[in-house]
C-alpha cells in the first residue's frame, strides 16, 4: 500500500497499550515480586555460597539473565495474545478490512508489545539494583540489545498468535520451548562451566547468544564474543520479519 497510515498505526499502538494499562498493577507488581524472589533464593541463600563467576559476584551475575528471561516470556505471551484475541473474538474483521498494510499492523502490535517488554526489563533491572551491585559497562549497547531482543521476540510471539488455534497452543511455546531454552541458555550460569558435550550442544541454543551478548553489555564479558551475539540477534530478527511478511502476503490463518 502506498503512503503510511500513521493514524491507524497509532490507534493500534494505543489500543494495545491501553490493554496493558487496564492491568497496570499486575504488570508492575509481578516482575518486582518475581525478581525479589530470585534474589532471596539465588542471590542470598545460594549465591552467598557460590564463588564469583568471571570475576562478578553470583548475585550480580544473574541479573542480565533474569532480565532477559522475563522479557522473553512477556514478549512471547503478550504479543501472541495481542493478535490471537481479536482472531478469537472475531474483531479481527476490522483490522482486515481497514486501510492498514501488514507492515503497519505489525508496527502497531509489535511496537506496543515491545514497549511493554522493555519497560518490564527496566523495572527488573531497577529492582535488582536494590539487592545487588549492578555495574553496566556499556549502557547504550545494553539498551539497544534489550530493545532489539524485545522486538524480535514480540515478532515471534505475533507469529505464534497467528498460528495458534486455541489458548493451550498459546501457552505451549512459551512454557515448553522458551522457558527451558532460557534456563539452559546460561541465564544462571556460564556455559563454559558445562562439561562437553553439553557445552557444544548449548551452542545450538539461540538464547545462549542473546544472554551472552546482554551480559557482555553489563560486565564486558560473555560466553561468546559480542559480535557473534549481535549477528545471532540480527539473524533471528530477520527470520521473524520474513515469516511475518509471508503470513500477510498469503493471509495464512488470517483470511479464508
Amino acid at each position: 500500500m502506498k503512503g503510511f497510515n500513521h493514524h491507524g498505526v497509532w490507534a493500534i499502538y494505543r489500543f494495545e497499550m491501553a490493554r496493558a494499562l487496564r492491568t497496570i498493577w499486575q504488570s508492575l507488581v509481578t516482575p518486582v515480586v518475581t525478581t525479589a524472589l530470585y534474589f532471596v533464593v539465588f542471590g542470598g541463600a545460594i549465591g552467598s555460597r557460590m564463588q564469583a563467576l568471571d570475576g562478578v559476584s553470583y548475585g550480580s551475575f544473574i541479573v542480565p539473565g533474569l532480565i532477559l528471561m522475563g522479557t522473553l516470556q512477556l514478549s512471547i505471551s503478550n504479543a501472541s495474545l495481542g493478535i490471537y484475541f481479536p482472531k478469537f473474538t472475531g474483531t479481527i474483521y476490522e483490522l482486515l478490512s481497514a486501510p492498514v498494510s501488514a507492515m503497519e499492523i505489525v508496527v502497531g502490535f509489535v511496537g506496543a508489545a515491545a514497549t511493554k517488554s522493555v519497560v518490564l526489563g527496566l523495572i527488573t533491572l531497577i529492582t535488582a539494583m536494590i539487592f545487588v551491585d549492578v555495574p553496566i559497562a556499556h549502557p547504550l549497547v545494553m539498551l539497544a540489545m534489550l530493545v532489539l531482543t524485545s522486538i524480535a521476540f514480540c515478532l515471534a510471539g505475533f507469529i505464534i498468535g497467528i498460528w495458534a488455534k486455541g489458548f493451550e497452543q498459546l501457552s505451549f511455546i512459551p512454557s515448553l520451548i522458551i522457558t527451558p531454552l532460557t534456563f539452559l541458555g546460561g541465564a544462571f550460569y556460564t556455559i563454559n562451566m558445562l562439561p562437553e558435550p553439553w557445552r557444544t550442544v548449548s551452542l545450538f541454543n539461540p538464547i545462549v547468544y542473546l544472554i551472552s551478548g546482554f551480559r557482555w553489555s553489563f560486565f564486558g564479558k560473555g560466553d561468546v564474543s559480542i559480535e557473534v551475539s549481535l549477528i545471532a540477534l540480527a539473524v533471528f530478527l530477520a527470520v521473524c520479519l520474513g515469516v511475518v511478511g509471508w503470513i500477510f502476503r498469503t493471509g495464512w490463518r488470517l483470511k479464508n
Partner: protein
Amino acid sequence: MQPILSVRGVSKTYASGHRALKTVDLEIAKGEIFALLGPNGAGKTTLISIICGIVTPSSGTITVDGHDAIAEPRAARMKIGLVPQELSVDMFETVLATTRYSRRLFGRAGHDAYIDEVLRDLSLWDKRNSKIMELSGGMKRRVLIAKALAHEPDILFLDEPTAGVDVSLRRDMWKLVKRLREKGTTIILTTHYIEEAEEMADRVGVINKGELLLVEDKAALMKKLGKREMDIALVEPMATIPAELDEWHLTLTDEGERLRYTFDAQAERTGIPSLLRKLGELGIAFKDLDTSKSSLEDIFVDLVERRDEEQAA
C-alpha cells in the same frame, strides 16, 4: 454514470472445497440502497467479505469508486464501512474509545464532534462511557454501526442489520438507513426477509446457493415475488378437480383434502371472490381457508425455473 462499486467475475471456493460463490457480477450506483436477499448459506456474507477485503476471492476483480481493491487497497478501503453479521466487538473497551479507534484505524484524524454526532444519532450517547460488555445485544449492534460510520464511509455494508433485533430497533435501523441515504451514503444490506428488502431498498439482488439469480428494481421484483397461496380445506376429499374450475389453475394437495390456489397479491383482481362463488355453485363445501405468502424457498425455485425457461426460449 460510473458505478461506485463494481464486482466482476467474483467467485469463491473455500479451502474446504465448498463453492460458496459462483461467478458474480454486480454494479452498485452511487447513493442507492441495495438489498441482497437470500436464505442461510446463500453466500451473502462471503460476497460482502470479499468486497471488504476479509476473504480472498478465488477469481474476479472489485472496483470501488474507480480504485481496484487489490491494486489500490488503501483508497478503496477508506471508502467502505462494514457492520458484520456477528456481534464481534471488544468487550473491555468503552463505546466512545472503540468508536474513536475505528476512525483512526481507517486513516482519519480524530474528530470528536463528528463521533459525538454519530453516537447521538444511534442513541448511544448516554452509554458512551459504558464498557461494551455491559450493553444489551441490540446496543452492541448499534456500537458496530457507530464504528463502521466513524470514518465517514461513502459505502456502508450492513450484514443482516436486523437479525436478533426487536421491532423498535428495527424501525430505528430503517430510519437510520434513510437518513444516511439522504446524506448520499450508498448502502448495501443483506436480509432474509422480503419485507425488509421491500421496506428499505431501491434495488434488490436475489442470491441463492452462491448464484446471483437476478437484480432488479424493487417495484418490478415485488410483482414477481408478491405471490400468495390460498389453501381450501375441503369437507369431502376430492379425486379430481372439476373442469369448471380450470380457469383458477388449482392443485390438489393432502390426498385430495385441500385445494391450493396461487394468486398475485398485487393484481387488481385476485380471483378469490369468483372462485369462492364458483365453489358454492358447484356445491363444494369447505371448512377452512388459509392464505400465506409463498416461502422464500418457493420463490427461488420459481425464479430459477423461470430463468431456465427464458434461457431455453
